[in-house]
């Protein structure tokens, strides 16, 4: 009897592995196709049936594609936007989250509900007036409309950090005050060091968000020299719309940093998603 049960378990296990592996192939194939195309000789891109392993492997598609799309120049723009919005978001969101998590004040719950409800507000409602204001401030075609709002906290990240801060005992806050420490000292010396995993989650999400952002740059930037990578790739496609070996090579390079960050920091990713997804 026992024997039969363990045999059954083994069979179900094998079944699960087969299903999971099949699905994995389905999820990975588009990536493999992207890499395969990126390494093909141009005329072999249009061969039917297509070859999976490129022969010959054309590595020079990469330097050529990057050169044509002026990659390093646009990378600079992306890095400026990404790093400054990361700085702004981390600074402001953690301060605000600390305020919501550790202090009692009038209207706190109401304000927090307001904050949560802004996550449901479609950004299209605010973007037109903001565009008009930024136009009159002559901020269009600068990075300011993309960067400056990040210094005023992002509801999603404030929520995420607050959830984490709530797990830190309030007594720590109170004890430190009795010891004569100021609130900013507590924030800097106790809260932030204890919250490294949550801070890491926010940093990674913001990195990914800014790196991939398309709508913001599309609205606010219309000079080629200001384009970040996302817009530059879009423009590249407009000119080289059938050169798939180049387009895929550029896509691989633009996707790669996100994949690397994900592999290095997977733990924080999963944790961050879980922290915000569970109960609002």
């Amino acid at each position, binding site marked *: 009897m026992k024997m039969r049960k363990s045999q059954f378990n083994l069979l179900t296990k094998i079944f699960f592995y087969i299903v999971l592996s099949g699905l994995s192939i389905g999820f990975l194939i588009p990536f493999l196709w992207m890499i395969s195309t990126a390494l093909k000789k141009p005329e072999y891109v249009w061969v039917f049936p297509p070859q999976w392993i490129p022969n010959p492997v054309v590595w020079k598609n990469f330097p050529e594609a990057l050169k044509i799309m002026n990659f390093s120049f646009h990378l600079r723009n992306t890095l400026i936007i990404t790093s400054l919005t990361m700085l702004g978001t981390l600074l402001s969101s953690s301060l605000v989250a600390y305020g919501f998590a550790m202090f009692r004040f009038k209207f706190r719950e109401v304000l927090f509900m307001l904050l949560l409800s802004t996550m449901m507000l479609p950004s299209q*409602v*605010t973007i037109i007036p903001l565009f008009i204001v930024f136009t009159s401030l002559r901020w269009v075609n600068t990075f300011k409309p993309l960067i400056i*709002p990040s210094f005023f906290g992002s509801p999603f990240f404030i929520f995420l950090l607050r959830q984490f801060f709530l797990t830190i005992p309030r007594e720590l806050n109170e004890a430190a005050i009795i010891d004569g420490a100021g609130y900013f000292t507590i924030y800097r010396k106790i809260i932030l060091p204890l919250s490294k995993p949550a801070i890491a989650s926010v940093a990674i999400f913001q990195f990914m968000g800014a790196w991939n952002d398309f*709508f913001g740059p599309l609205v606010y930037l219309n000079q080629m020299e200001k384009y970040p990578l996302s*817009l530059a790739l879009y423009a590249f496609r407009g000119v080289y719309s059938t050169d798939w070996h180049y387009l895929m090579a550029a*896509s691989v390079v*633009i996707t790669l940093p996100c994949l690397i960050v994900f592999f290095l920091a997977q733990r924080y990713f999963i944790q961050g*998603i879980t922290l915000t*997804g569970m109960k609002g």
Partner: protein
Amino acid sequence: MERKSRLAQREAKYGYLFISPWLLGFLMFVIIPIIASLYLSFTNYELFKPGTSWIGFKNYIELLTQDRLFWLSLYNTVYYTVFSVPLGIGVALILALLLNRKLYGVTIYRTIFYLPSVTSGVALSLLWVWLFNPTYGLINVLLGKIGIQGPGWISDPKWAKPAFILMSLWGVGGTMVILLAGLQGVPEQLYEAAELDGANWWQKFRHVTFPMISPVIFFNLIMGIIGAFQYFTQAYVMTGGGPVDSTLFYVLYLFRQGFLLLRMGYASAMAWLLFIVILLLTIIQFKLASYWVYYEAEGR
């Protein structure tokens, strides 16, 4: 007593100080723009064009009664939402159920399923344009291998929306991770009790798993619908709304009116209608939730 209230006052003061960046941002980037947007929606404002005047409900009336593309874009968006959101949650749930076992190497599969969600936007949209190529694209090549003549996907008005729905299923990783966390939070004793009562696999899912994770599914449903109504980047990059406006989604049309034709008053009215639709849908879902979402506290 007095000392205590002074402490409380100090605490409140610092509380406000710490949240002040958000308060300021909320005022500048949310409240004032919302009011301005509402005002604009009742005007014929066009960027760089003098002579703006108050025109009452004219934008709304034009949208609702004369603008064919408004209704078409709303239809396209509803179509996309109705299929992509439930299907996405269904696929994510199946993946999460498969992963919710003590199997060796299960985290590797989780990583693989999540991978497409790490990157989004232009690069992956381009990849899918290539995958959907009617002749040389991978999807039709694979379909051809099993003897099916694949459709034109994003170049065929009939198949363009299904193509976007299919593509969206590739990105269910985020939902899957949230659902997996929900599944891992279901107490083991509930399953043991169900097994003692002789429940089979389906009964356990129906009466234990599903009720226990229904709040998580509800959360994903709400956020999924809000996201689907704002679908933009992929459609903008891959089809630009075509062919024959079959993928002209709502925000794409709004963008066209507001930022290409610069009819910003009109586009503001569109934004407000979108807001109202999303708000109504969310309220309806909260009302319906009591029929299927299980909250532990009520059950006791």
